[in-house]
């Protein structure tokens, strides 16, 4: 379970965040949220697919780390074996909270930094400190805050992107058929990808719209990212000693 609280320099001045990456610290997710603004970095290492958030039914784009629940094939020797970690993973254990404030007599919502106190990465012993000894944020905390800001805008943008994909029927479900080196066959279902047939049939007006928003590039990067399945499969074979 999570225990999200507003981060403050008084109650949380001695907290430290573990930077090691391992199952023990909750890094064993098989996929995580991503968004078009970071597709360029993500597609270099991970397949990008789409699936539905089980809580809202809304589509999100995800970076894939494994082939089944709790399998992250990038975890090795307490570290993450890839140069880029998607922001939705890197931000943990921080998250965005919304605070209602009153500014000049007007009710407004403001984004604030929350921390999940029950997250295994939150300790008092070792890791990155959040606050400087005599007050002020550490650069580590500032970086985390920047990530959350990027994620916030990324999600807003992602919704527009995905609505366009749905409108033009560019998403299709698929089942990934895998064969490991020992000839065992496995399936991964529940994900969606770009329907390339529909994509190639788009009229120039629609293409221009997608291009103007930078989404055409995102679409092609998502398609290109599928080549990372091979890399994932190699990792899986390696882990199993096959």
């Amino acid at each position, binding site marked *: 379970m999570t225990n999200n609280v507003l981060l403050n320099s008084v109650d949380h001045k001695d907290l430290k965040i573990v930077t090691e990456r391992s199952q023990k610290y909750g890094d064993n997710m098989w996929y995580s949220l991503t968004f078009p603004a970071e597709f360029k970095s993500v597609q270099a290492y991970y397949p990008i697919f789409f699936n539905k958030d089980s809580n809202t*039914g809304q589509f999100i784009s995800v970076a894939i780390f494994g082939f089944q629940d709790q399998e992250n094939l990038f975890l090795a020797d307490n570290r993450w074996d890839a140069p880029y970690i998607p922001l939705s993973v890197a931000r943990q254990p921080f998250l965005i909270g919304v605070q209602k404030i009153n500014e000049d007599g007007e009710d407004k919502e403001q984004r604030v930094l929350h921390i999940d106190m029950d997250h295994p990465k939150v300790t008092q012993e070792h890791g990155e400190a959040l606050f400087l000894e005599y007050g002020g944020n550490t650069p580590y905390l500032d970086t985390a805050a920047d990530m959350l800001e990027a994620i916030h805008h990324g999600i807003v943008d992602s919704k527009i992107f995905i609505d366009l994909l749905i409108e033009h029927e560019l998403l*299709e479900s698929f089942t990934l058929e895998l064969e490991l080196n020992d000839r065992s066959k496995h399936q991964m279902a529940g994900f969606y990808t770009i329907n390339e047939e529909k994509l190639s049939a788009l009229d120039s007006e629609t293409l221009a719209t997608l291009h103007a928003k930078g989404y055409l590039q995102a679409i092609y990067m998502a398609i290109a990212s599928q080549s990372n399945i091979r890399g994932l499969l190699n990792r899986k074979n390696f882990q199993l000693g096959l």
Partner: protein
Amino acid sequence: MDKALRKIVIVGGGSAGWLTAGIIASEHATELGTGLEIILVESADVAPIGVGEGTWPSMRTTLKKMGISETDFLLECDASFKQGSKFTNWNTNTNEYYYHPYTLPHGFNNTNLAPFWQPYRDKISFADAVSTQSQLGEYGLAPKQISTAEYDFNANYGYHLDAGKFAGLLQKHCTKKLGVKHLIDHVTQVNEAESGDIASITTKKHGDILGDLFIDCTGTSSVLLGKHFGIPFISKKHILFNDSALAVHVPHQSPDSPIDSFTCSTAQSAGWIWDIALPSRRGVGYTYSSSHITDEKAEKELRDYITPIVGLSAAKTINIRKINFTPGHKEKFWHKNCVAVGLSAGFIEPLEATALALIELSAKMISEQLPANRQTMDIVAKRFNTKFLHRWQNIVDFLKLHYVLSKRTDSDYWREISEHKQLPDTLQEQLLLWKTQSPYYYDATHTEEMFPSASYQYILYGMGFVTDTPRKKRLNSSKKADILFNENLKHTQHLLSTLPKNRELINKIKQYGLPKI
């Protein structure tokens, strides 16, 4: 005689008129000049009857084919999911109940589980043993999740809806998206051609409207088929006694009260009360036999029923609407170039929600069999009449089945309606047969039967009917049945742990909408 059929005139709006328009217009091109012309003439003076708030699962296909978004439909029609019916007090009047779910028994297409369930009939209800859905009903769960695409399901479902709002949505969709023309005008006269066909109808403001096919959706007044052509009406009052209804809208106990996804039907002293939960209110009504109870006494039973929902003072004062009807149907439905759809074709108590289902089936057949010209119309008409006479007979038999198995003797109504001597011959025969073999494939004698034999099973065994098969089955088929029972149990557990409450899902749909894929 070989004049091409180009123009359809639908007389009457409401669910019947607009569903018919939508079903035909979503199959045939309606472009100006080359396409089929569909005009719906609806009087502003005639209020639709506004009942018929339950649908069959077929409505999902109907709406999807028309191109209506399920999210829009659910939100605009104050609609919710319907997974079947729950019957209380029909058998012994001791607060007992049974379910008739929309899901077929597990493995139904390959195996008839009914005979294998019989030995366990005192331990588990038939619906619980063979389907997951009665348990979903018990726990108030929805038939799908927020991530389930529009019109897809985890458990088969139709809808509960606000009939007035439904007609409104269909009207908007038909006129804006499907090219149906809409005239608000009153029909003053029906004009006959020499052949006896309807040549045109005269309207107050728009003069004469010509057409090749006229569809009578004028409700119980049956302006074209009944009044103009004088096609006789066949009463079924001697079989199904109910000829009156008292209807009322009541608020939920609280805004977050559970929304039941089964139509609750609770037997009373001279009929039964329906209870249909929509997101914003409940529609409750008592349909009864005026020969067995006075309106005043029926009203009291209805007010007693709603007292726990709305409280004593509101239950006493709330406005109740009275509807009179004769149960039965027309002798034929398609005559010359006129076909009746909806209440103009027939009307029967709302048990098993046949009203909207019959409209869908009628419109579907008209659309798929739409004659190319006047010459072939008589052939199609003959087929249509045969098909729908059979369907009406099916409905009468199936509804009667609900009553005839009752062991209630607490009123004249129940003593008389369960008497075997006024049973239709067809049902009499079936009941004899079902004593030694359970309904299955061969009980469906026609294609597109109104009710699958599974429905007969749910009613029979829900009412405690015993089928005593004389011959034992081979051991391997009973092992196969055990596997199916176990699978059903597992599947039930799985759904109970994954599906949201019905109200919870409706609220999420309001917030996020259902995904399109």
